């Protein structure tokens, strides 16, 4: 029988994979995708616990997380296009304009 622990451990695994991707990749778009992965694993935790506790508030939280993720995607990808226009690359090694 599938309990709430199965869902929690699945989302912990997915969150760790997302962290691994954020720490190891250099392409900014892939890092962005790994952040989406982490957001999704947290959404799974919210829905599993909301089902377990028979309460609707967790799913409302997931709704707002999705709204924020959509806004983040729009602004983040616009930032990447603006950066690419300056540097012709989106490697995180090239994000050094504020260094001196």
């Amino acid at each position, binding site marked *: *029988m*599938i309990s709430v*622990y199965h*869902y*929690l*451990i*699945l989302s*912990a*695994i*997915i*969150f*760790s*994979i997302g*962290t*691994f991707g954020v*720490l*190891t*990749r*250099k*392409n900014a*778009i*892939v890092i*962005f*995708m*790994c952040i*989406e*992965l982490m957001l*999704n694993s947290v*959404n*799974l935790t919210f*829905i599993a*616990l*909301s*089902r*377990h*506790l*028979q*309460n*609707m*508030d967790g*799913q*409302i939280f*997931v*709704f*707002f997380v*999705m*709204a*924020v*993720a*959509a*806004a*983040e*995607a*729009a*602004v983040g990808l*616009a930032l990447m*296009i*603006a950066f*690419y226009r300056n540097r012709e690359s*989106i490697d995180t090694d090239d994000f050094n304009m504020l260094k001196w």
Partner: protein
Amino acid sequence: MLSILFYLFATVAIFSAFYVTKARNPVNSALCLVTTFICFAVLYITLDAPFMAAIQIIVYAGAIIVLIIFVIMLLNLGTAVKKRYTHALAWGAALSVIMLFITNTFIRRGVPTGKLGDVTTQMIHSYGHTELIGMALFTEFLLPFEIASILLLVAIVGAIILSKRQV
């Protein structure tokens, strides 16, 4: 039956999530991300949340992934060179394994209890999941809902300003 479904989709989700971090070509990463999102939508259905599954497919697999693939193809990104990220690999892997271990111990040690609400399976089936979400969203969470709409408006304006050539 339900456990077979859970293990199948959990395995597919884990493997495709891992391939998101490993694929050289960003387009392959994006397609694997779609697979992960669809597996998550199936898991939401097993959790009696069909509205959340629909939103997951529409917003994530529909809107956000299309935006990401659009940007990847607009920037014409090539495949990553292999030697460029080997140095951080060990540290990143060690840190994420430690994090997985810590969260695992906390999940196994604790018991998720609390005050039980009134949304039972029988109530979801008689009212409908969308009706319950809408009822909570437009009564108890009305102010956060309006703030979210303002946030989306600000994001639209910000994206247009950022991608203009000269402000």
